[in-house]
């Protein structure tokens, strides 16, 4: 199949299996989101797909195993954005986004005109071109996330691996960033594999969800099948209610474990 697929993936960190035999797939141009409690193995799975931790099993891009690819070639196909990207405070936005061209440069190569054009259009696409000369330290949280996405876009990779792309943002900026990612995938045909901790947002943006629990797949499928009060209750040890939102997609709302302890009215 086309797109990104992960087969029987097992990752051990310090000899502890963190991801155990997980298989899942994001169709080309689709958005697959991993959800699950802290420590379920979401980030580790993403890092394995980026080739950053050793794994057993396979990661296939359009049916071809990426393990055999040289690092630079893999980086041209798959872009990775960590949960907390390192932003050198004195680096300018433009220089930072230009780093996205690294996989396209030979060992002693330097960025040329084409690299600068790609960088400029990535800055444009994420609406940060006017900040090009600004130092990263002077960017706000939402702007930073857009700059980081611009760097990923500058790699011209077909797959975006996003680890909690909205974790540091308020609800407005979360929505803005998720809309941008959705736009990139619709306009540019990018395939997105992300983790998202906000279950309602995950249901709104991803075509398919994979619920991980202790390194294994607890449930997978469209939002309506995965975001149920029973499943979430069992996997997260949380008490929630799931209602249909105005758009028909599930809205997950937490409930206090003991209903009689709510605010006094």
């Amino acid at each position, binding site marked *: 199949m086309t797109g990104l697929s992960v087969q029987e993936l097992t990752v051990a960190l310090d000899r502890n299996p963190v991801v155990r035999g997980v298989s899942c797939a994001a169709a080309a141009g689709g958005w697959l989101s991993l959800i699950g409690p802290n420590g379920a193995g979401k980030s580790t799975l993403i890092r394995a797909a980026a*080739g950053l931790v050793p794994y057993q099993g396979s990661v296939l891009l359009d049916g071809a195993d990426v393990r055999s690819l040289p690092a630079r070639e893999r980086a041209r196909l798959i872009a990775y954005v960590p949960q907390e990207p390192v932003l050198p405070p004195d680096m300018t936005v433009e220089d930072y986004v230009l780093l996205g061209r690294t996989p396209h*440069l030979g060992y002693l190569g330097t960025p040329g005109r084409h690299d600068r054009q790609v960088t400029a259009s990535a800055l444009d696409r994420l609406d940060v071109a006017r900040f090009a000369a600004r130092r990263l330290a002077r960017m706000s949280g939402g702007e930073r996330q857009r700059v980081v996405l611009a760097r990923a876009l500058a790699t011209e990779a077909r797959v975006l691996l996003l680890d909690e792309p909205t974790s540091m943002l308020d609800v407005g900026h979360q929505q803005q960033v998720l809309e941008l990612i959705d736009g990139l995938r619709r306009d540019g045909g990018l395939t997105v594999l992300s983790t998202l901790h906000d279950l309602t947002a995950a249901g709104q943006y991803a075509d398919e969800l994979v619920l991980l629990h202790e390194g294994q797949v607890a449930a997978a499928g469209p939002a309506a099948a995965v975001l149920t009060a029973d499943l979430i209750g069992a996997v997260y040890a949380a008490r929630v209610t799931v209602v249909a939102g105005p758009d028909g997609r599930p809205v997950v709302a937490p409930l206090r474990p003991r209903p009689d302890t709510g605010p006094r009215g």
Partner: protein
Amino acid sequence: MRKLGALGIAAIFLIAAMLISALVGAADLNPLDTVAALADKIPFVHLPSGLSALDRAVLFQIRLPRVVLGVLVGGLLAVSGAGYQGVFRNPLVDSGLLGASAGAGLGATLAIVYSGGAGPSAVPPAAFLGSLGGVAAAYLTGAAASRRTGFGNGVATLLLAGIAVGFFFTAVQTLVLQRSAEQDVQTVYNWLLGSLSGATWQLVVSILPYAAVSVVIVLLHGRHLDVLAVGDEEARALGMNPAAVRLIVVAACALATASAVAVSGLIGFVGIIVPHVARRLGGPGYRSVLPLSLLIGAGFLVLADTLARTVLSPAELPIGVVTAVVGAPAFVWILRSTQGAPP
């Protein structure tokens, strides 16, 4: 544009520093005649100069080798400091932290104390090997420790290993000194404080190949150091091999430091202060920080040496004292501006 401008300023600074140093000293050379005599050496330029034969000897055999040695040593120390700062992602690092100085100190001490008749000629090669040995010991210790513990990304472990190796070498050096003749102790201390007073064309030529190779390698890795700024993991996700880049740059910087230390002794602060000035001038990217450090470091050391040999003339101040007097306050300034940077 800013980068080209900065390079131009740095180049003018270096040329001015070299001219000043060539003109200032015990023998009073006529400035115009000196400039004419220097320009006469440029191919296809022929200028008459009123310098006497003695003045010419002073200029070409005493002052110029010393100026050129200052250029080499200052450039090497500054560019390797900048390289180390890029590799370790820390603006306060320099070669001293990685066992290079302690290794060179131990090498020179052993040569002075145990070489017998060989004397001064044994010191440069011994310091050179000691400096490389210090960095190698630090690197291997750090690599072994981080493999065993999986601690950090290797950067912190490497620095700690460098500090440990430095302490060990210094302890051995102290032991050797404590058991040696007073005259040797004096010689070792003079060497430790740094000096360019032994400058000859022969000494310049002896380090030139190492200087050239190491500087070229470091300069070619500016872009890699910029990628390393986002951390090992993201650098790897961009298709780079951070460990390989680190090894290559550390090896080249070790060679640069060893060449400089071999002919000048221990001269502190150049490797920390100069790259910082380069950042202020041309921005934080290593593709400009490295060449700017090379030029500014060269000019700075030539000026420091001019002070060292004129302030107490005819006696000489150790150049390490001059760079420390300028460098220590500047270091505090860097510390403040690094920590007080607006968020």
